[in-house]
Each structure stands twice: as C-alpha cells, then as structure tokens.
C-alpha cells in the first residue's frame, strides 16, 4: 500500500512538460512498432479470409471464410513439402548445432588454453548474413568448381539436386547457428553459481555428471530461450533458400511460399495471407513461452 502510494505520488509530481516528454518518448516508438509490426500482423490474419488478386481496392475482395486454408491443406502442392522441410530444418538444428553448441560451451567455459581463440572461430560465421553464407558455401557445393566434388570426384549439384539440396543448405545454416547457441550457453554458464559445482564435486559427481545433473537444470531459462530461438529461426529461415533458387525444387519453406505468392506477377493476397497466418500462429505460441521465461526472470 505504502509503495503504491509512493508511486502515485511520484506520478502526480510530473509537470506538464514532463508529461509531454514521457508521452513522446513512449509514443513515437510504440506507434512505429504498432504500425509496422502489429497492425500488419492483424491485417495478415484478416486478409487470410478473403480472395483478392491485389488489384483494385481491398473493398473488391471476396470474403471466402476458411477457403484459403482449405486450399492450402488440400490442393496446394508445395505446402506439405514445405511443412516437412521446415520440420526437418528444426529437428536438424536441434540435433546438430544445438547439441554441438552446448557441448562446445561446456568445454570452452573451462579455463582452457586458447579458449578465446576457439570461441572466435566458432562465433565467426554468426556475423555473416545467411545470404552471404549461401554464396560462400557455393565454393564448397558448386557442381564443377566446388571443393566437395573436387575432393570426391562426384558430380552432384548440391544446390540444384532436390535430393541433396535441403541437407546441403541445413549444413550451411547450422554452421552459423552453432556459434550462436554456444554463445548463449557460455553466457548462461557464467551465471551458474560456482558453489553448486563445488557441492556436486564434494558429493562425488564427475564432471559430466555434474553438468547434466546440476549445471544443465539450473540453466533452465537459457534452455527455454534456446528452444524458442531455434524454433523461430527455423520457421523464419528464408535468405539461404531464396538466394539459391527462390525456395523451389526441393527447397520449399513456408516463408518462401508466402513470398512467392505475393511478389511477382500473380499475387494471391488472401492465399498468401493464410500461409502467413499459419506462420504467425506457430510463432505466437513460442513467443508467449519466451516472454513468460524472460519476464519471470525479470521479476525475481
């Protein structure tokens, strides 16, 4: 009660000028984010229920209810491959870069000679854009000038052949993701109370056991954040497949399908919006998990 009274008192002390300053400081950024992020998100949902070729005004659009969703699920050929690819992407990021990133963080967290140098090596890809990574890995994957075929003597077109290109692209994107995960865990490990480790050691735990039984569970917030980031990153994956072949021929992803439906000749606004809404719904679930994690940490 006392605290609330104090706060209220402070608020009342705001002069008119301060009131204006506070309003502007909050208002301008909020308006920008609402106008360019939240309003578009809601509009995407609304547009997903109409059929509209994008010409003329929105008023000309026909309300078709759930028809777009039905079409996506039933008769849009690239949809299920895209869902499958997104899921493969997600699982691969977990099994590869995430596990490796955790392992690297656990090893490099200890005072090991050259630790910083190793960290730099693993971080390095993190500062490159995914579009550029597609470009760099072309030097490895290219059919006739690539390192991979040069070493093995095969003639696979790693980016072009739908049997291999998804795997090839995931390796390249995992190359970048590993350093990111390692970094998050390194930060998390620094926050673990050393006394916990000491206690575990006194209780006779080995290093590996200590990590899994004591350290890993304590890092629960980091684990959740990494989970959410990985899900969202694999859902948003776009740049790499778009530079390679605009997300076709084995590289279909939901993000690329949305873009294909909007950019270019035939724009199917309602249909594309339904695909966009599917992305929004999936990401919202994980964003809520994320917010609950970081905000709860906030209050403690």
């Amino acid at each position: 009660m006392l605290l609330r009274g104090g706060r209220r008192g402070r608020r009342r002390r705001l002069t008119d000028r301060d009131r204006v300053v506070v309003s502007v400081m909050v208002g301008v950024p909020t308006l920008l984010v609402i106008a360019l992020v939240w309003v578009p998100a809601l509009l995407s949902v609304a547009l997903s229920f109409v059929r509209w070729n994008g010409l003329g005004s929105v008023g000309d659009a026909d309300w078709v209810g759930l028809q777009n969703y039905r079409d996506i699920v039933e008769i849009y050929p690239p949809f299920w491959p895209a869902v499958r690819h997104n899921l493969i992407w997600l699982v691969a990021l977990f099994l590869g870069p995430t596990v490796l990133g955790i392992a690297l963080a656990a090893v490099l967290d200890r005072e090991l000679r050259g630790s910083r140098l190793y960290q730099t090596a693993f971080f390095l890809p993190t500062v490159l854009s995914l579009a550029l990574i597609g470009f760099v890995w072309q030097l490895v994957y290219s059919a006739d000038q690539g390192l991979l075929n040069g070493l093995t003597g095969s003639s696979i077109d790693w980016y072009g052949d739908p049997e291999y290109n998804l795997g090839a692209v995931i390796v390249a994107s995992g190359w970048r993701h590993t350093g990111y995960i390692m970094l998050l865990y390194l930060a998390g490990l620094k926050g673990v109370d050393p006394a916990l480790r000491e206690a575990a050691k006194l209780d006779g735990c080995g290093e590996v056991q200590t990590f899994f039984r004591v350290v890993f569970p304590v890092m629960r917030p980091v684990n959740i954040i990494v989970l959410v980031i990985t899900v969202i990153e694999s859902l948003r994956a776009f740049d790499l497949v778009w530079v390679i072949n605009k997300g076709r021929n084995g590289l279909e992803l939901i993000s690329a399908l949305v873009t294909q439906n909007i950019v270019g000749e035939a724009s199917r606004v309602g249909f594309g919006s339904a695909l966009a809404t599917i992305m929004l719904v999936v990401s919202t679930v994980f964003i809520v998990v994320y917010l609950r994690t970081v905000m709860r940490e906030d209050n403690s």
Partner: protein
Amino acid sequence: MNARLRAVYALVAVLALAWLFPVIWALLNSFRSYAYTAQHGYVSFGGWTLKNYADAWERGNFAHYLLNSLYVTVPAVIASIGLAACVAFVIARFSFRFNVALLGLFTAANLLPPQALLIPVYRIFRQVPMPFWISSSGSLLNSFLGLILVNTAFQTGFCTFVLSNYMKTLPAEMFEAAEVDGAGVWTRFWRLALPLCRAPLAALAVLEVTWIYNEFFWATVLMQDSSKFPITSSLNNLRGAFFTDNNLVAAASVIVAMPTLIVFLVLQRQFVAGLTMGSTKG
C-alpha cells in the same frame, strides 16, 4: 591432464579449424586466378593473383551497393537504439500499469516472422505518398526511408528489451536525487541514464550494425529497383554476373563480409556482450 581430457581438447581444436575452413577456403581462392584453377582443379596450390578483387569490385558494382547499405544501416541503427533507449528509460524508471505489456509488445515484435507481415507492409508502403526528394518512386515502397523504417521497427524491440533490463539495475536513488534537484524527465534521461548505459549502447550498436547490414528479406521484397538494393540483397543479382567463376564469387564474398568481419574482430567483446545481454542478461 588425463588422456580423455586431452582428446577432448584435440577434438575442439580440430573442430575450430573445420569451422574456419569455409572462410579460409574463400579467402584462399579469392587470390587465385581462374585460368589456374580451371586447369589444375580447385584442389591445388598456386595461381596467385589480386585481380579477382579488382574484377569483383568492378563487375559487382560494390562501391554503389556498399553505399546503399550505408544509407540504410546508419540511420536504422541510430533510430532503433535511440527510440529503444527512450522506451526503455520510461519502462525502467516509471511504474505504469502497462509497463509489462509495453515491454512485451516490443520484445515480441522482434520475434515475429517478417514474412508473415509482408503483404500488409507492402500494401501500406505502396499507399503512403512520399515527396519525390525523399523517394523517387513517390511512395515508401522502393525507398531507402521505407527500408529504414521497417528495420527500425523490428530492431527497436530487441534494443528495448536489453536496455530496459540494464536501466533497471541503475540505482534509483540517483534519479530521485536528480529529480529533487529539479531535473526534468528529459534531463534525467539524456544526462544521467544514457551516459551510464555506455556499455550496453556500444554492444547494441555493434550487434545492430551487423544485423541491419545483413538484412536480406525486407530489402529484397520492398526494393523493386535492384540498383537500390543494399549489398546483402544484391548478392542475388550478382550470382548471374559471377556464375561461371568461383574465384570471383570468393573475392566478392570476402568483400561483402569485410565490414561485419572487421566490426566483429575489433569489437568482439561488445558483440558478445550484446548477444548475451539480450538473451540471458548475463
């Protein structure tokens, strides 16, 4: 050191080398002539030259695209951090009922998939008229300003989250003292809070420079005139120009990567701090 530990260290060293390898490979081949590699294959040694860089620079029109990146990156970085600092200050220093909701609104915005917002943003940008001295297209679509706005809107969320967490750790007594001395809200923000936030501001600046410089999606879909692409998006066009010559691809990659590599290697500490502050508040 026991044998098992030594094995782990050796493994890490080998992995680190493997991790650097694509970059080293690009660097290596960027200095080799196409004629040599065509004759001896890429798994060979020799044919050193600097010509690829000159050719790539020329053919890729990099001076132009790097400038485009500069036009977008610098204002967007300043705007997103500046706006975020304002919101973060109010969230951290005043207790309004909607504080948590506000922070959530900003933080979540940064995590939404941009593709899911594409259609409305595209339509809105096409509808907003702009004077021709700002945008030659007459609307926000296909203009640097549009790209700056959209990047700012997205990145403000992340910066707000980091800065508000940091500002909450600043001692409240200091601000109360300033208030008693008659310092208004703006003075407390500008003269007190911002100077104390030098560390997170530097970290965010580094991080945002690499992120906005690397941004690909919005530039690709909102800029219809490919001569206005920032360098990251222009890579797609360049593929055609370089298609038959991987040594040129290598040199181009090195050129495009250079700004972020320099930022990273020189300001590594800030970069790492930024990423970790944002995720776990380390």
